[in-house]
């Protein structure tokens, strides 16, 4: 049983960052910065659980989308004229453990088949499991640098290419990357920060009444999960529908030059490296408009999107506090 997404108290920014990624996965993920005990992993799990089921090829280790990119095995079957069997599955949260080996991440030679039959086959890794799912990396700043590189490469390309131990294999690896980090426990290199589409800062709630609500909901869920889910079902299905509608609407959302110039003027003024930030901001703005059921992006979407897409891309000394940058950004937006 999973705690319902809509029953999470507060943390609106984080919820928004996750939802826009679900509406448009090409936004390239979310980095959640903040203290422990702020419902980060609860929120990701809850959102995956809320989303509607989608079709997948039955028993495919890559969870292939019958209508989308296929892994080599499914592609071969389809080419041979076979009708691929389908199942409906929920999105999952695949977790990347900190101590993971490269083998386990990208996949490697299937040792059983190799010994038994002397054949070389690919044994899928975490990136295969993550295809069309969430890939959740807790404390991504503590992951070995070379693994972060591998991970972000796959995330950007949407494919995982393995060339090792006589194995040559490529499979789709389109996942929504969600990383968390507590900046007090080590930084993430700027070039890696830049690869995360959006970022949110989360803080624990310090208002006693809301905290009471947190405890009550958690206790009530633990006591009687079924009853609790039932009470929240209406809110859940309403959000589920909004997200589905937004997904369908996304490509029809239009943007004007004015919107583009707004984004670019802020990013140049802030001295943001590269173009990833601009693109992420535009896509996030589009997803926000779609979530609101509109076909045009408005200024408020852009402002909100910039708050999600720029903070981690600011040129900064490692010692500047996030708050300070936030203020600069806010003063620009409020001009």
């Amino acid at each position, binding site marked *: 049983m999973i705690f319902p997404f809509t029953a999470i108290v507060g943390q609106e920014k984080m919820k928004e960052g996750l939802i826009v990624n679900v509406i448009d996965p090409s936004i390239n993920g979310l980095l959640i910065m903040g*203290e*422990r*005990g*702020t*419902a980060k*992993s609860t929120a990701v799990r809850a959102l995956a659980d809320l989303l509607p089921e989608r079709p997948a090829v039955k028993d495919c280790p890559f969870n292939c989308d019958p209508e989308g990119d296929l892994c080599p095995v499914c592609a071969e079957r389809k080419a041979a004229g076979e009708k691929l069997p389908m199942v409906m599955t929920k999105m999952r949260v695949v*977790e990347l*453990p*900190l*101590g*993971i080996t*490269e083998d386990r991440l990208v996949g*490697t*030679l299937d*040792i*059983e088949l*190799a*010994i*038994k*039959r*002397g*054949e*070389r086959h690919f044994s899928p890794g975490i990136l295969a499991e993550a295809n069309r799912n969430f890939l959740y990396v*807790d*404390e991504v700043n*503590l992951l070995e640098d*070379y693994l972060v590189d591998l991970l972000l490469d796959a995330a950007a390309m949407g494919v995982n290419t393995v060339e090792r*131990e*006589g194995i040559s294999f490529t499979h789709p690896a389109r996942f929504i990357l969600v990383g968390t980090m507590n*900046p*007090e*426990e*080590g*930084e993430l290199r700027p070039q890696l920060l830049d690869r995360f589409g959006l970022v949110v800062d989360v*803080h*624990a*709630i*310090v208002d*006693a009444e809301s*905290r*009471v609500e*947190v*405890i*009550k909901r*958690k*206790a009530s869920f*633990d006591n009687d999960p079924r009853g609790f889910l039932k009470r929240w079902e209406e809110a859940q299905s309403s959000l589920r529908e909004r997200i589905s509608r937004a997904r369908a609407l996304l490509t029809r959302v239009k943007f004007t030059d004015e919107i583009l110039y707004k984004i670019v003027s802020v990013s140049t003024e802030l001295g943001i490296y590269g173009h990833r930030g601009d693109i992420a901001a535009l896509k996030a703005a589009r997803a926000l408009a779609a979530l609101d059921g509109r076909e045009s992006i408005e200024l408020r979407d852009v402002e909100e999107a910039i708050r999600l897409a720029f903070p981690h891309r600011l040129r900064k*000394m*490692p*010692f500047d506090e996030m708050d300070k940058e936030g203020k600069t950004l806010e003063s620009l937006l409020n001009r």
Partner: protein
Amino acid sequence: MMKGIDILPGMVGQKRAKLALLLLAINPHCGGVVFSGPVGTGKSLIAQLLRDLLPTEVPFVKIPLHVTEEAMWGGLDFERSLKTGKALLTKGILERAIGGIVLVDDINLLSPSALYGLLRHLDEGAISLVATANPLAGPVPSAIWERMGFYVLLEEFEDEPNRAEVIRFNLGRNVSEDGKARLLVAQARQRLKEMEVPEEVIKAIACRVLAHGITSHRRDIYLLEAAKAYAALWGENKVLEAHVEAVKSLVLFSEPPPAFLTPPDPPPAASESTKGTHAHDALPPGPRQGRSKDEVFEVGATFEVRRLFFPMDRLRRSSDGRRTPTQAKKQGGRQVGVTLTGKKDIALSATVRAAAPYQTRRGRTTSLIIKDEDLRFWRRAKKTGHLVIFVTDASGSMGVNRRMAATKGAIMSLLMDCYKYRDRVAMVAFRGEKASVLLPPTSSVTLAARRLREMPVGGKTPLNAGLISAYEMVVAQARRMPEMRFVIVLVTDGRANVSISKEPVMSEFVKLAEKMRKLPRTDFLVVDTEDKSSLLKTDRAKKVAALLGAKYFVMEELGAKKIADIVRGIGT
């Protein structure tokens, strides 16, 4: 006296420890407990006791420190797989522990991958944890603190009857032979299911946690669960505010606990024979001379010192990339991959993988046929190069003419340099009567910068105490990370005037310096903060540097302009 708690007759004193064990045994939702304390306080013994409290069907599994990944997670059973030709899996420790308790001794030394497994299972509520930690061996990961309901600091017993009792207890182990404790726990577990929690108790919990300055929502939940267990222990069916109050001090500890930030009394490093002379350590760090007020100075101008550690960095890379014969012999370091050439350090799984596709062709019947060309060897890389420990003089004399602002600027400049080279950093400050660890080793330069900003000055100059703190830190870290190199950066004007023993400051320092120089893989850098234009300059720091065998710079010389000299100086 509380009947519930005295039920563990074997455990002497240590009421908090007993209570924590009982609560965890009753309600696994309490997360876990860490028992911390110096060697010989019975941490492990106490942690073991939990087994005697639990219903027999609850799994109780110990994770050894050097647990392999296979053992932890389960993995391919090579022997049986090769014999049968089928991939057979072994059950990992964690899987066996589900629904029960995991015991880890010295959790601060546990490997990252084992730690990850623990965290995940803790988050899923699949296991609870009972762990011990020795503060001197290094900090407990804060991810663990976050998920522990209770923290208990164990102390040594001073009084004789208690000590005698401990010995008796050690001889005949079985504490709860009459099974009373176990029965009590079992009954409480039953009551827990029907426990009622009134709204005002929840409010009281939220308010108490906030009043403690803690923001993680996990703390509220743990406090609630602990209060429920406590109520159940006392035969109640409703949680009262008094129950919350009774367990509060167990649950609301700040992280990391103070014991980790301020090391206990400095050990008699310079003078073995002066036990009992640390009495003055207990005095508040108050100034007795010079400036009489604590002040916090802002961080002064920073400057570029980027090439300062350059020669050291080059050292590090050569050990990362090229393998010198000595390093090839050692099997230290992290396995980063496999190679075709090597000597003894065979990578078994890679070797088997390489051999696997040829087995049919080679005519395997029972065991695997491995040829020379299949052999694979580990390629290892050393962990990040340096731990830079800043030992900063924060005495009153540093505040004269705002010297501290410039000093903070210099330290900040060095910190930026560390950030650039991804060194780990730690900070020790000494002032008044003692030294304190402002920041245990971390890779977060941001945090170091914050601690630097907040550092106050005032009081006397216990330079020796500062050095001892750094000494202990190096010893503890060197044990954990055999590849780590250390740089102790001593920032001071050298006017030491407090000793840790009865000995005069300077003769104590001479002995201490001799000891420091024997530290493994450690370089020293002394940054002299004295105003050299002053008529009263003493150049004491220069003497300190000479005795430590340290490189020595006057603060103003650290700037980029003087780089050439520094580079020539260090690392030779």
